[in-house]
């Protein structure tokens, strides 16, 4: 017997949302386990800075580079000034 279009749609919804939830729940579990394992076996491996939204999707690496450069220049000038003021 042919399924109606509506039956197909409902099945797709149930199967789809089910899969999405199960998959992401499994991912939560595995991620949590993985993080714990990492923190136990390689605890010293922390980056100096926490996640920043500057590097999130859309931010360009070049912009980040330029920022870092400006920071470096500013730092150089500061250091220089500090040395001079001694």
């Amino acid at each position: 017997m042919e399924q109606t279009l509506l039956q197909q749609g409902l099945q797709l919804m149930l199967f789809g949302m089910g899969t999405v939830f199960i998959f992401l729940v499994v991912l939560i579990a595995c991620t949590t386990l993985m993080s714990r394992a990492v923190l136990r076996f390689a605890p010293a491996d922390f980056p100096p800075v926490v996640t920043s939204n500057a590097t999130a999707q859309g931010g360009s690496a070049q912009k980040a580079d330029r920022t870092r450069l400006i920071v470096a220049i500013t730092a150089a000038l500061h250091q220089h000034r500090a040395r001079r003021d001694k």
Partner: protein
Amino acid sequence: MEALLGLWADSGISQLQAGQAFMLAIGLLLLYLAIKRGFEPLLLLPIGFGTILVNIPGADFNAAPIYDALGHLASPGGILYYIYHTGIETGIFPLIIFMGVGALTDFGPLLANPKTLLLGAAAQFGIFFTVIGAVLLGTFNIIDFSIADAAAIGIIGGADGPTAIFVASKLAPDLLGAIAVAAYSYMAMVPIIQPPIMRALTTEAERKIEMQQLRPVARAERVFFPLLLLLLVALFLPSAAPLLGMFCLGNLMRESGVVDRLADTTQNALINIVTIFLGLGVGSKLNAEQFLEVKTLGILLLGIVAFAIGTASGVLMAKLMNKFSTHKVNPLIGAAGVSAVPMAARVANKVGLEANPHNFLLMHAMGPNVAGVLGSAVAAGVMLSVVGN
């Protein structure tokens, strides 16, 4: 008789030209939205331009190449023909873009608070609710949508351009133009669509909830995460492997720290080149015959429903999680689960600041935001495996 035929032909042509003129106006509208209103310009500018090119009467941008009997090229095709058929019909361009998005994605906030993945899952309800909407329009003969059409339209609710284009190119290539335009337009309109829904479904007190600062994330966690995701996909959801595999490759290049020159090119030159051609290729589907259909109206209508339902589902899931957890989440970040990275996360932050000027939700919202990308890629995999054959 001949005169009548001529008349018909004329009117046919003039009708066609009316359609093309209308599509030229649509192309200009998309350019206006991109340039003046800042609606996802990286995609809508090339899409709008491609729309104009493909609707220039007699310019044949979409013409197929013609080969003579010996297999030599007698007449080359139009450039949009080549772009669409090599890059979009094959799925190559959306997959390369997805690799680039992976290389630009920071999973840090998600790793610091993995349960926000649930928000990204819940927001995908918008996708499947829209499928039902399309199916109902089909069932009641309002618009003649097939189940494949319905699935492709639903994916607009994923709020993720390359995913929508990838799915539509496989399931409903005729609707690709309308679906892509709807997806990117509504993504750009997230700051208009989402806030009323977010405010309606939350109390002032809920919107004021401050969240704990995210823990720092180790480099090793960042390296292992794309591999873990890849293996889970390999084991449980091979139909999502093209999208999520390329995404994980980009993210692994980013986080491994050993191939920075590859990651840099992926994030810049490569994704930019492919974005231009992807946009032009999508634009080539915005021709009068395929776009000036009642189906397009249906798609635009269903698309905004998808965004609204996805937003609501994310917020409600966050409220549900708060019933079972001691670490309260601010339900506003649930709205970021639709993805539309990073716009939806910024919206959550902004609405949160209105309620509590010291409450910076941006980083907290980035978790569900990128989770939404994964969620809709999973949903895309399900659709491709269930409907795709």
